[in-house]
């Protein structure tokens, strides 16, 4: 059997007729589960202190529910489009991404010193959240042209083109300025380069150039020392740094630490519910989880998110073409980097940069873009071409 499969490999072709409806339930249900949990956590976090001066205790929960509904609809709708069509129109998506990021610079408004929001009257959106997905599509499209069959076909020229595309996104986000999101973009870019099979020398060069640019920016005064201090506050966790970000971190550690093994119980996280932890329904949502459901609950969240990430890479590695592989990996990298940095930030092992926790943080742009992302991964799974060998093997098994 194995020998036959091997021998058939060279004749691999796609069997469109016998393709069955496939659906990765694990990915979908875990995403649904973790997002629903998020709604509950947001309710717990906001029902008492009502950030933003709203009067309805369920305000943030209901908003999140609506976005969750929208996310599910988008998830389903996306599945009717073959990802190859998206690949074909990558330049349109590049245009959309650049357009939205330029638009936010022109018409956006500032929150916490970053001009990253556009007010659309009926709702506000954060283009940099959606552009993450756009960038992944664009980079995947560009990079997938590098190689068809052979692996190490990533030429210097192609790396430069991809780098320019990525740089465009990163610079636009830096201009807002939203350093946290820009960092995610950068990590995703490096991750895609890595998965694409690019020579390590290229990757190291890009890292080196970036580091050089960073120090240049620091010296030239584009990045202020206090901004750096704020980001690196986690490195000196003494109480003397109890102001600003240090205060956030201290309160967050108190909340999570005080949760203990089993937590204080849902809706009983006083530390977070009374908003001692700032941004406890958005960037610091994990502190609510840590306080209310404790170590066990926190591990569960990390496990679910880990399985979702694993699923992205699994689907990527089992995809039928390079674009699909890069697309699913790119989404995997987005979720991975955000989860690690966000959770790490709330427990004091990562810099305090304002990025949301995927599927859990309150916020429409984040949730919907995440659903868009996993929808694309699911799409890759659904629309992947099955090699004849698989079908034959399946039939023989029957």
């Amino acid at each position, binding site marked *: 059997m194995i020998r036959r499969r091997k021998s058939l490999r060279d004749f691999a072709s796609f069997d469109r007729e016998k393709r069955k409806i496939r659906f990765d339930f694990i990915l979908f249900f875990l995403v649904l589960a973790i997002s629903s949990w998020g709604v509950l956590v947001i309710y717990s976090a906001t029902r008492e202190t009502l950030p933003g001066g709203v009067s309805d205790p369920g305000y943030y929960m209901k908003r999140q529910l609506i976005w969750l509904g929208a996310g599910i609809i988008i998830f389903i709708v996306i599945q009717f489009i073959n990802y190859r069509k998206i690949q074909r129109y990558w330049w349109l998506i590049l245009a959309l991404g650049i357009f939205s990021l330029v638009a936010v610079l022109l018409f956006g408004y500032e929150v916490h010193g970053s001009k990253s929001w556009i007010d659309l009257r009926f709702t506000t959106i954060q283009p940099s959240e959606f552009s993450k997905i756009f960038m992944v599509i664009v980079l995947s499209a560009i990079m997938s042209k590098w190689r068809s069959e052979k692996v190490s076909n990533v030429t210097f020229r192609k790396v430069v083109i991809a780098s320019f595309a990525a740089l465009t996104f990163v610079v636009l986000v830096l201009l807002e300025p939203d350093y946290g999101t820009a960092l995610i973009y950068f990590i995703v870019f490096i991750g895609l380069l890595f998965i694409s099979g690019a020579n390590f020398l290229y990757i190291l060069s890009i890292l080196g150039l970036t580091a050089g640019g960073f120090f240049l920016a620091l010296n030239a005064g584009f990045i202020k020392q206090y901004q750096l201090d704020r980001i690196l506050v986690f490195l000196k966790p003494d109480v003397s740094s109890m102001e600003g970000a240090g205060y956030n971190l201290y309160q967050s550690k108190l*909340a999570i630490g005080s*949760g203990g093994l089993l937590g204080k119980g849902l809706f009983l996280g006083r530390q977070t519910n009374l908003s001692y932890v700032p941004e406890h329904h958005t960037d610091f949502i994990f502190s609510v989880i*840590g306080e209310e459901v404790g170590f066990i609950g926190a591990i569960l969240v990390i496990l679910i998110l880990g399985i979702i990430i694993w699923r992205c890479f699994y689907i990527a590695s089992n995809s039928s073409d390079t674009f699909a592989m890069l697309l699913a990996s790119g989404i995997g990298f987005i979720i991975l980097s955000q989860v690690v940095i966000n959770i790490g930030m709330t427990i004091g092992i990562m810099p305090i940069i304002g990025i949301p926790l995927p599927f859990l943080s309150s916020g429409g742009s984040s949730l919907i873009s995440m659903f868009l992302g996993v929808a694309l991964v699911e799409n890759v799974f659904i629309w992947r071409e099955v090699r004849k060998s698989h079908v034959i093997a399946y039939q023989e098994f029957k």
Partner: protein
Amino acid sequence: MGLNIKIRFRIVLYLLAILAVVLILRLYFLQIMSGGLYAELASENISREKTVSAPRGNIYDRNGKLLVKSVPVKAVAIEPLIVSENEDVMRILSECLNISYEKIKEKVEKSNLPYTDRLILKQDIDTATMIYLKENSDKLPGVEVIDLYLREYDFGFLASHLLGYTGEIDEERLQSEVYMDYEGGDQIGLTGLEEAYESLLTGKKGKIIYEVDPLGRPVNILEETDPISGNDLYLTIDIDLQRFVEEALYQSILEVRQKKITNTDEYYKVPGGAVVVLDTRNGQVLAMASYPTYNPELFVGGISQAEYAELEDPENHSPLLNRAVMSFPPGSAIKIVPAYAGLTEGIISEYSRFTCAGVWYGLGPDFPKYCWQRGGHGSLDIRGAIKNSCDIYFYQVGYGLLLKNNNTEELLQQYLRTFGFGSATGIDLPNEDEGLVPDKEWKKDYFKDQPGYTVWFPGDTVNMAIGQGDLLVTPLQLAQAYSILANRGLEYKPYLAKEIKDSEGNLFPDSSEDDYQDLNLDESFVKIIEDGMVQVVSPGGTAAGTFWDFPLSEIQIAGKTGTAEFFGKQDYAWFASYAPVGSPQYVVVAMLEEAGSGGSNVAPMIEKIYRYLFNID
């Protein structure tokens, strides 16, 4: 898909696993290993505690008349650590409390110590101010309107030395172990019974534990304990008797001040005096007066510096001091002790007679000792010696006690101590003097810088036998000693608090009640001394002039006068007594400073008090 890519995917998966493990390990450290610590920090972070003042217990007299009560007032309390950093708060407070900004700043900074968690800025604020402060509490972090209980005295000046006064706890006390449960601004007993029974009178504070939001605004109450009011105190004092005694003391002082010292143009100064009335049967203090006195109302809500300076002014003879428990030279009033000592030690017998010629040369021709009656008393036995208060007789008793066993045992001092002198009676009042029974050791120590004075001279004992020299006693000690005689040797500890009523209304007796011991005195000797004391008030005695129309046949009084010389001052006048002889009920002792003879200047007041006690017109 090439091999290279597969490895790269594997690397990503490993990375994913490693990162997950790192996050979980960090969570394990935070939540499992440090969970307890963080839980503690978090609850400190989030919950605040505030206390609710408990009303202080009331004080009643023996008949249930309310003497002192607690009245609630509103007060402005601040947390110095918070307010000191906020000038706006101090400015607003200055405006609405009508205290200058500088004064508030000074007060806050002066007490800006870690243990001063609360400071009272103003007591007894009006309703308008209270409402203003409560409405603007958002603008006034660290400021709070609290309930406070202040004292109200229904009988004004009366018994002020016994009751004492309360005031705000100071920082020194706040630091001490004894006042661990107290916080800044608390009212505590500072003198008198208020101080002695502080732990019983002060209630148990209520507690409110509440959650606050990050701005310190209360969100909800977690735990609430109601305050428990302090125990009520029922005194042995009869306030009507107390009033009578205080007025009698005051009147007699005014009267004596009108008198001139014999053969001079100098008036008696009489800066002060004291009266003690005890129930001989149990040691209860029925009245205790001290003059000059003060108004405890002055201390309510904090006394002003000017008022306090006036009370402390030497011109005013220290009205805050309770002279009933202060030491003075007793003069002849002490003679009952050498009399008993002489009889017991065999120095004299019931019929031993000495002849008084006005002067005695027992210590040598160079050391003549005179009797107060320079003309001499003639031949006297012990009864007569007491009746006439003959000094010559008692010089010889003292000398005899000194000579016995070469004064190795210091017999006179021993007997004085037996009768309670030289140590505090243990009455439930703070700051009771011990008095002084001088002896060799004391002299050696006291005059250690003046060699030559450290030796005990025979004259020291001889002088002590008539209540002169360095001997010092308190009016209360003297009253107790006479009570011992009246009781034929039973010594009761004097006390003021009869019963205690807790917040639930349960009455229980104070532990000091009926605490007595039998001194095993020889009754026949006591009877001899009593005979002499009966004669003091009888015709021919040193106080006969005062008691000539007192119905002694119905109510026999036994008494002893005293006139103590005090270097550089006029004589201190004493009269110590008990009645009725046979079934004694009362001991009455009075002392007037710089008032001359006890027989003529103190006894009349005592006579008035007995008339009151026994309802005689």
